[in-house]
């Protein structure tokens, strides 16, 4: 949409605001102008199949609300102000994770209410995809490192991401810390969470000598327990991580919230730092040695247990950071990490299990595919695109783009 419609990205309503009664389907929104000032008295209508099903007029703060819609489906939100018409198509979905009421922020700043060209849409989607890809990469590198050092596929890694998202929400929205500070605090909390998981859980299991399949089953149990605990504590709602609004930035045809660019910057910086650390750092090199051959690394004086512990701390911290960034990019929900987990697996497999650099490339491919395919497939099937890429890769190149084949015997 050429009209800068930042759908549900920086919803103005915080948690308290976004708590309608059950089964109240509808939209709630904010209209503002180029100077980000509220637009009062704009006529808002919601249409379904060309029929108007609800109307409202924006109040002094630019807010409007149309509730009591029939249920899930595709709706068109039409805003008329200053002699111009702005339209956006929006779907209400019952997924068990999103609220029946969607928040919309619409701006009149980028006025041309004409259909954007495919090229423009592609550019917009590609930037979103890059953003998604980078934050998948941050989370997936932790997954990949844990796999590399202990050959363990952790199905509870998505919950580390959710943990970060929820901690980010707690620090930013409840404790009112500035966004960047909240992100840092959540990352530290995530690192501590990773450390505790290894200390209290995975390390004793490794010591006990349980098989990898047992660990895998234990990890789905842990994932289910944690996810349900998050759902219990945080609820079913989908909330913005922060109320901070940094405005939007237009680069050519691409309009994105400034926070997304900052998020991408942070992602790249973190990924470069991890990359350099793996290549140059003493522990980083030890990590790669352990990933190559744990027995040999142990024999040559590397403290495998310590390396594994550090990898868990790093993995927890990176996952939490990714959760914060995902919370800024999308919203925070109790299953945000689980949904991302499958895309992380796609990235890790695409890059070849256990290779950190392959994972980065894989993540960007998955992120781009997920976002770009939305141009052709329905929005509520967004993740299907990324998962389909995973399945397709396994059909063609099971060892991944950069993986090696293993020796038998």
């Amino acid at each position: 949409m050429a009209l800068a419609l930042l759908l549900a990205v920086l919803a103005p309503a915080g948690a308290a605001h976004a708590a309608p009664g059950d089964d109240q389907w509808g939209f709630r929104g904010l209209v503002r102008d180029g100077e980000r000032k509220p637009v009062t008295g704009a006529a808002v209508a919601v249409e379904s199949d060309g029929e108007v099903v609800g109307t409202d007029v924006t109040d002094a703060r630019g807010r409007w609300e149309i509730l009591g819609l029939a249920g899930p489906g595709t709706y068109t939100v039409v805003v008329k102000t200053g002699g111009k018409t702005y339209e956006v198509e929006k779907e209400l979905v019952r997924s068990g994770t999103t609220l029946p009421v969607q928040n919309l922020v619409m701006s009149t700043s980028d006025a041309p209410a004409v259909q954007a060209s495919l090229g423009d849409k592609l550019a917009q989607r590609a930037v979103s995809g890059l953003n998604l890809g980078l934050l998948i990469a941050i989370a997936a590198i932790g997954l990949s490192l844990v796999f590399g050092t202990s050959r363990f596929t952790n199905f509870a890694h998505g919950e580390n991401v959710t943990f970060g998202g929820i901690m980010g929400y707690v620090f930013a929205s409840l404790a009112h810390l500035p966004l960047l500070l909240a992100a840092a605090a959540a990352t530290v909390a995530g690192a501590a969470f990773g450390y505790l998981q290894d200390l209290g859980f995975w390390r004793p299991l490794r010591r006990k000598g349980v098989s990898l399949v047992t660990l895998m089953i234990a990890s789905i149990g842990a994932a289910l327990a944690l996810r349900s605990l998050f759902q219990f504590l945080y609820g079913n709602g989908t909330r913005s991580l922060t109320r901070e609004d940094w405005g939007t930035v237009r680069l050519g045809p691409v309009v994105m919230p400034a926070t997304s660019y900052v998020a991408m910057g942070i992602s790249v910086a973190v990924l470069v730092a991890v990359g350099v650390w793996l290549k140059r750092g003493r522990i980083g090199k030890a990590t790669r040695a352990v990933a190559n051959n744990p027995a040999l690394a142990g024999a040559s004086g590397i403290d495998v247990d310590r390396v594994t512990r550090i990898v868990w701390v790093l993995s927890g911290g990176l996952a939490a950071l990714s959760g914060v960034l995902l919370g800024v990019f999308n919203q925070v929900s109790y299953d945000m990490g689980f949904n991302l987990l499958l895309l992380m697996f796609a990235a890790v497999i695409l890059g070849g299990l256990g290779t950190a650099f392959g994972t980065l490339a894989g993540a960007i491919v998955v992120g781009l595919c997920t976002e770009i395919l939305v141009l052709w497939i329905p929005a509520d099937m967004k993740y299907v695109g990324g998962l389909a890429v995973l399945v397709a890769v396994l059909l063609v190149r099971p060892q991944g783009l950069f993986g090696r084949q293993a020796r038998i015997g």
Partner: protein
Amino acid sequence: MDWILNSLREIITPTTAAYALAAIGLNIHFGFTGLVNFGQAGFVAIGGYGFAISVTQLGLSWPLAIAVTLLLAVGYALLLGIPTLRLRADYLAIVTIACAEIIRFTLNSSAFASVTGGANGLYNDYSGWITGANPYPQGLVHLGPWTFTSTDLWIATVDWAVVAVVAVGVFLLIRSPWGLVLKGIREDEHAMLSLGKNVNLHKLQALVMGGAIGALAGILYVQPTSVQPFDFASRMTFNMYTMLILGGAATVFGPILGSMIFWVVMRFTDELVNAGVDAGLLDNATQGSQLRFVLVGAALVLLVVFRPQGILGNRTELSFDAK
């Protein structure tokens, strides 16, 4: 006392039967062949939707609808198995869970709502074939201390008959040389190859058979209620693993016992939660039900680590942890 009676009633409900059946299928994968399928919910979804759509949209008769549904499940198993079975165990785990989610997202999508009902699912007007044959008197039926609606009891009867037939079939299969080959594959694929066994073929057969049983379970699962996409979330598969390991993986009757205990405990904790809500300790029952799944997850971890052989499993057989 009511709590306990209400909970014990779960032993024979249709849901318990359907879960037991799906877990029997999963047991062929995981318990006997060592295939880590984290997407059994996908097979169950294919079963439920395949049947409902065949009957309501395509107007097929019920035997034909069952046949079509099972064929779909077989096709899906082949699609999953052929590319992934030659890879490491975790690839199959990842691909099965990913494909199960693809199925759920697709069924949930409003894009196909005209066929699948989208997020609302499909209203139940496909179970006439089973309810129509109900021999029990109309209304409420008393069975010991419990009361069932006539329909529920009839569906439960049919379900448990199916479970019994399948369980006996699986028992005989597992006792046969074919079953021994599956167990051998669970222990060591390379050893089996060196002994001249076509490992991939056997794994594919196991995947197809367990998946088809899962789809059959899906058909049973949706008979008493409507079809809802949310039911087929990954949680369904994880519940089945809990049942499987609770009852005893690699035993034929373990999944059945596991399903019974699972649902009794779930119902019992549900009653506890309701009491908690009444006493003002919990905000609402939905919240409480999340808490129950925290317990399920924790139970799964504890079981797989400390009692991997489950209740019915042979202690010696599973005390050697397969490395």
